[in-house]
């Protein structure tokens, strides 16, 4: 067996790749759904209805998609330059932590000033989380995958420490949770009575900004070049190390903003279960989008709909809601294969 690069990749195939991957993951997971005793078609129907069937469902799905757009974008930006940032989870919590420090009373400004300041500080916190790993990679050749992964655990323990210590809400009935952020720091809801908040608009804005940066600026070009062929980029006179550092800072920053959006828009305060693995799911989102900043919006919405839909399906059909995690990870692996099949032709010889 050998792989032969396609000289010309039809655009239809590029669009079809994620659709085929998703379809494959539904088929592959059908066996698991059936194992639980539920009727597969009925269960998938319930999933679809739970994710998209009503205004409430749609609000839940897009509220769930919001942090995934941020973390998906963070992964897409880093992976494009072949910088493997697996630490979005930790960066998200770092952003949430700084927002909790500043937003629960230390700063009290007009929302028009307060929110931009919080966005910037959460981005700085997330970016700083990645500064160590990127410098270690550049100067010592330390693999960033392991350092970013380990940092996730360290940050989560730090959050736990602070939530049981200085940041603990005295009114929290003993639970390890922080005080809620003040009203000026809250991201306004988009519709009366629904949880969907303006963090979504922020996420869309960042996707568009980054899309423009990647296709219209020198930086975007350099980031792609470094990812495509680092040696060639260096020969072409590009400041490879600087590009890597900038990439890492942007990636970490965007993941940090996810923490702000979740605290200020969704939950209101910082808890230890602020993120059910948004950082890791972001990797799947980025891969499904083939690392395209605008594609991230679509793939995040898809992944979010699986999670929200699976919750509904779990309640009414009795399929454990972990099926969502299984489906999402299966679709990641299917996506890797289908992208390969788009780029290469398999020759059996």
């Amino acid at each position, binding site marked *: 067996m*050998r792989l032969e690069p396609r000289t010309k990749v039809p655009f239809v195939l590029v669009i079809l790749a994620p659709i085929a991957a998703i379809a494959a993951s539904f088929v592959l997971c059908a066996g698991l759904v059936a194992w639980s005793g539920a009727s597969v078609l009925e269960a998938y129907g319930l999933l679809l209805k739970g994710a998209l069937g009503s205004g409430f469902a749609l609000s839940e799905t897009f509220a769930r998609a919001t942090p995934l757009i941020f973390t998906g974008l963070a992964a897409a930006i880093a992976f494009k330059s072949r910088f493997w940032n697996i630490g979005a989870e930790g960066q998200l919590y770092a952003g949430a932590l700084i927002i909790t420090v500043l937003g629960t009373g230390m700063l009290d400004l007009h929302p028009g000033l307060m929110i931009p300041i919080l966005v910037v500080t959460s981005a700085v916190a997330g970016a700083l989380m990645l500064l160590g790993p990127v410098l270690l990679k550049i100067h010592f*050749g330390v693999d960033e995958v*392991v350092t970013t992964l*380990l940092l996730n655990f360290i940050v989560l323990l*730090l959050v736990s420490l602070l939530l049981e210590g200085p940041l603990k809400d005295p009114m929290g009935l003993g639970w390890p949770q922080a005080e809620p952020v003040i009203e000026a720091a809250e991201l306004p809801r988009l519709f009366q009575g629904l949880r969907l908040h303006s963090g979504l608009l922020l996420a869309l804005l960042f996707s568009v900004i980054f899309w423009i940066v990647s296709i219209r600026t020198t930086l975007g070009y350099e980031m792609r070049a470094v990812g495509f062929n680092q040696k060639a980029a260096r020969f072409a006179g590009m400041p490879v190390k600087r590009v890597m550092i900038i990439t890492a800072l942007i990636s970490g920053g965007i993941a940090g903003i996810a923490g702000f959006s979740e605290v200020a828009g969704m939950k209101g305060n910082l808890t230890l279960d602020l993120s059910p693995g948004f950082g*890791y799911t972001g990797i799947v989102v980025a891969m499904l989008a083939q690392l395209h900043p605008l594609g991230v919006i679509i793939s995040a919405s898809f992944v979010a709909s699986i999670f929200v839909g699976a919750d509904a399906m779990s309640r009414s059909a009795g399929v454990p809601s972990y099926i969502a995690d299984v489906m999402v990870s299966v679709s*990641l*692996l299917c996506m890797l294969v289908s992208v390969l099949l788009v780029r290469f032709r398999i020759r059996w010889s």
Partner: protein
Amino acid sequence: METSFAWLEIFLNASFWVAAVRIATPLIFGTLGEVICERAGVLNLGIEGIMTIGAMVGWMAVYQGAGLWSGVLLAAVCGGVFGLLHAMLTVPLGLSQHVTGIGITLLATSLSSYVYRLILPEVSSPPRIQAFEPLEIPGLSSIPIIGEALFKQTPLTYFAFISVVVVAYVLYRTPVGLAVQMVGENPAAAEAQGLNVTIIRTGAVVCGSAFMAVGGAFLTMSAFNAFFFNMINGRGWICIALVVFASWRPGKALLGALLFAAFDAYQMRLQQLVGAEIPYQIFLMMPYVLSILALIVMSRRVGYPQALMIPYRKGER
């Protein structure tokens, strides 16, 4: 005066050394498995998930009435299956080992949770099993301080020590081992020798993954006797760091795992000693901080397999 030397007295306590060896066991299996994979040129970031599935499957088999060793075997087979999946995607297809490995971890972890919930929908506190009992080796186990640590452990711990010797022997002294090293250093040369790079790499990843799964199974079948979600808790990632620390050598992997575990056991006892003065989270952070430090210290003199993370495509240079 009595308390001031308490931090030193920990070392004289036999239970400290027993705990250190027990904590080391899953790390020995995991690191050994990862060494095998990486020696053949394949980074296996599926380790965290493969350890999880090993922990779940081994425990579940025994809970459903299987024997303890059948549970271990089943865990190893499941680990091998996930290893095979990782190998199929990264070796013949040459997909990114980073992203595939993370995908394998996500899949194996979520599948463990799903299957566990499916079989036990209503349990809130995890049920326990009759796990491996410590096996005392008469005579040797009565050596002061370290006797119990080395000779009064559960059978899986002895199996871990034996595995290190066997893997080291196979890797350095047999044609199979040399072939594994060769495809990890220079696959084109291996191919020229008539070796099948795809099959050797796949075999190494399957075998290494089976070891990882047994490491996970140790946790549910010899240590905690029950399965919890997130029970692997980064041990897999620590193993990845230990592989670098061990310079990809089985013997050093054993040493690294023991050193690391001794440190972990020590910080747990120190934690009880200083009580509430230092938050317990600081102590829990230490293993992760230590792993990062180990990576930095070792980075200067890494002798990593030359073809690590480079997919091999026939006829391509």
